[in-house]
C-alpha cells in the first residue's frame, strides 16, 4: 500500500549526450534511498515505451533540437506537475546548440551527403528521422520550466540536493557553488 504514496519520478533524454543520466546513476548508494521514496515511471534507463500520465517530477536532460523533442516536451509538460531542466543542455542549449551558427540544410548535407561512408539517397527516404529544428533551443523556451539544475554534467551532489528537495516538496535552492554552468 505504501507504494501508492511514492513520488512518481520520470527522467527524459532529449538532445544531449546522456552524461547527465550517467551522473544521475553516480548517485550510487543514494539511489537506494531514492528508490524507497520514488518510482521511476519513465526513463531511458527504465523500460517504459510511452510517457505516462500523472507524473510528479520530471527531469529533462538535453536541449530541444528536433520535432520529436518538441512533441515529447509538450507531453512532459502536460503530464507532469514539476518539470526540471536537468543539466546545461536543457538549461542553455550548451553543446547541442553549437550547431546554431550553421544552416541546418548545409549541416545535413555536410554530415550525410558529403561525409565518409555510404551515401544515403535523399534526405530521409523512410521518413523516420525526425526533422531538425532550424535552431536548437533550451527547454524553457518551449515549455514553462519550474527548476534548473546546471552543470555539464551536474555532479551527483547537486542532483541529490535538487532531487531531495523535490521529494520533500520543497523548492529547489542550490548553493552558489552548485550553480556553476559547465
Amino acid at each position, binding site marked *: 500500500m505504501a507504494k501508492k504514496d511514492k513520488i512518481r519520478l520520470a527522467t527524459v533524454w532529449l538532445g544531449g549526450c546522456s552524461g547527465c543520466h550517467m551522473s544521475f546513476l553516480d548517485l550510487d548508494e543514494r539511489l537506494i534511498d531514492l528508490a524507497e521514496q520514488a518510482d521511476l515511471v519513465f526513463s531511458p534507463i527504465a523500460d517504459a515505451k510511452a510517457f505516462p500520465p500523472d507524473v510528479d517530477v520530471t527531469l529533462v536532460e538535453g536541449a530541444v533540437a528536433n520535432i520529436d523533442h518538441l512533441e515529447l516536451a509538450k507531453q512532459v509538460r502536460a503530464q507532469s506537475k514539476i518539470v526540471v531542466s536537468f543539466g546545461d543542455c536543457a538549461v542553455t542549449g550548451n553543446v547541442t546548440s553549437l550547431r546554431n551558427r550553421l544552416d541546418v540544410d548545409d549541416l545535413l548535407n555536410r554530415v550525410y551527403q558529403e561525409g565518409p561512408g555510404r551515401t544515403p539517397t535523399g534526405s530521409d527516404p523512410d521518413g523516420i528521422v525526425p526533422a531538425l529544428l532550424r535552431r536548437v533551443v533550451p527547454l524553457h523556451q518551449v515549455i514553462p520550466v519550474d527548476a534548473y539544475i546546471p552543470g*555539464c554534467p551536474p555532479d551527483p551532489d547537486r542532483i541529490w540536493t535538487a532531487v531531495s528537495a523535490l521529494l520533500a516538496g520543497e523548492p529547489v535552492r542550490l548553493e552558489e557553488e552548485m*550553480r556553476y*554552468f559547465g
Partner: protein
Amino acid sequence: MSVVTLTINDELASANSGQSLLEVIREHGIYIPTLCHMDGLSERGGCRMCLVEVQGMRTLQAACVTEVAEGMVVTTHSERLRKYRRMTLELIFAERNHVCAVCVMNGHCELQAVAAIEGMDHVRFDYLHPDLSMDISHPRFGLDHNRCILCTRCVRVCDEVEGAHTKDVMGRGINCRIVNDLNQAWGSSQSCTSCGKCVQVCPTGALFHKGVSVAEMVKRHDFLSWITLGREKNEWNYTGQPPYYATERRKE
C-alpha cells in the same frame, strides 16, 4: 586628502575623497560584481554590473565611475539591483557563445563565476549564436570572438600599461569586435609585443594561451598591481589574487 563619510547599506563608512565608490564598497567587505573593471586600468563603466542606488540620484550609478561624496547614501543589493544584474548577465550570455563545458576557461572564468554568484540560472532571451571567427594566427595566443564580452580590458591594458595599443574595438552595437591593429590577423601585427597582458586580464576564454585545453586556463588578477607597484615603488611582492574577484570566491 580629506575624509568623507557616507552610508553604505545602512552602515556608516568613511573614505578618502577622490576614491571611487566601488573601491570603498569593497574596502568595507561588500561584494559587488564587476566585469569590465580591473584594478590598475582606467574605468569604463560599460558592463553595468556594479550599478548601485544612490539616494537623490535620478538614475542608477556605476560604482566604478562614481566618486564618493560626503553624505552619500548607497544601496548595493536591493531586489531591483539583483534583478537587473541577473538580466544584464542574461543579455551577455545570450549575445555570443558562452558554452562553459567546452571553454578553456571553464572553472576559472569570471563571467561564469559572476553568473553563479548572482544566481542567474537560465536565460530568457534568444541566444543569438552569431557566426564569429577565431584568430589563432599569433604564435603564442589565441582570440576567440565567440567568448568575448567586450569589456575592453585587453584594449586598455595594451594601451595603458604595455603602451602598444595593438587592440581596439571596431564596428558598433551588436557588431562590435575586438581588432588587432587595423583589423588584421594578430600574428601579422607589427605593434604587438607578444607580452601577453591582454590574455591575463581577459575575464573569459576569449583570449587564451595556445596549447591549453578545456578548463586549463588560469589567469592572474594580481599581476597588474604587481607591475604598477614595482614600477612606482620598487616593491616586488606578489600579493596574491585580490579576494573580490569573482573567481576567487569559489576557493574560499
